[in-house]
């Protein structure tokens, strides 16, 4: 094994994706759940870049998908943090199990 192939990079992104899923399932604090979502999005970005480099080097499409995912992740994070701040102002907590106004 003298060269890094596609599967090694895919193993890294796979591990990162499931780490993000684990964090999303266990955490109950909204900011940490948002951090887990960022990890998941980053693993998808690594996948796109790896496929673009190793399989479709004659195109740049994976790179553009990564760029647009980064942009949308930034928009998503900013909206999520605005919601978190609004929630904290109204309930003084950001634990997802203590905010249940819309439950009933």
């Amino acid at each position: 094994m003298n060269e890094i192939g596609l599967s090694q990079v895919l193993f890294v992104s796979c591990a990162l994706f499931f780490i993000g899923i684990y964090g999303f399932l266990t955490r109950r604090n909204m900011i940490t759940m948002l951090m887990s979502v960022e990890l998941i999005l980053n693993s998808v970005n690594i996948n796109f870049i790896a496929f673009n480099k190793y399989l479709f080097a004659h195109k740049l499409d994976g790179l553009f998908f990564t760029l647009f995912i980064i942009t949308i992740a930034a928009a998503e994070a900013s909206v999520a943090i605005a919601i978190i701040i609004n929630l904290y102002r109204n309930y003084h907590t950001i634990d997802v199990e203590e905010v249940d106004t819309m439950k009933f």
Partner: protein
Amino acid sequence: MNASVIIFYIIAAAIIGCGLLAVTSLKIFRSAVYLLFSLISIAGLYFFLDYEFIGAVQIVVYVGGIVVLIIFSIFLTQGSGGLMKKPALGRMVFAGLATLFGAILTYMLINNQLFISSNKQAIAPSVENIGAQMLSTTEHGYILPFEVVSMLLLAAMIGCIVIAIKVKTPELKNSVDTKDIEYRAADNLTIENKDIKIVV
């Protein structure tokens, strides 16, 4: 094992180790810092794969933007020092099992898959090529998603301001009340004046 393989394994270990610490650390500020190092290592992986522009964008947007935003929201919503609640043991065990089996399944799929790379002429992912294709209006151009994403960013910005803006609670401002208060104030003033006069 040559140098590039060793460098790749160091980067991969940094990504996965910092990611694991980011989702398991009980101190929220530490967790954000581990996320920062994980994202920097991912930028390092992009540099390793010769995608310098994406690596630079990763550092600028994620490390310079999103992590700073997350840290600010931590400061605004809760103290950075306190320990968070530990997740329930059952949830940890079952989430761990689910992710472990998912990871093993994906691992086996990747292992058995035969990837066939194209043998066409490769395009260098340089800023020149990226910019030319991003803003071209020809068949493989990305001008339409570019414009749509710019509209999305504008909408997200306005939405953030609308959601996070502090709504002023309507103060109790009945006209009668304020008049009463004014009358009382006036009475007090005259009484004080009288007192002062008496004293003088």
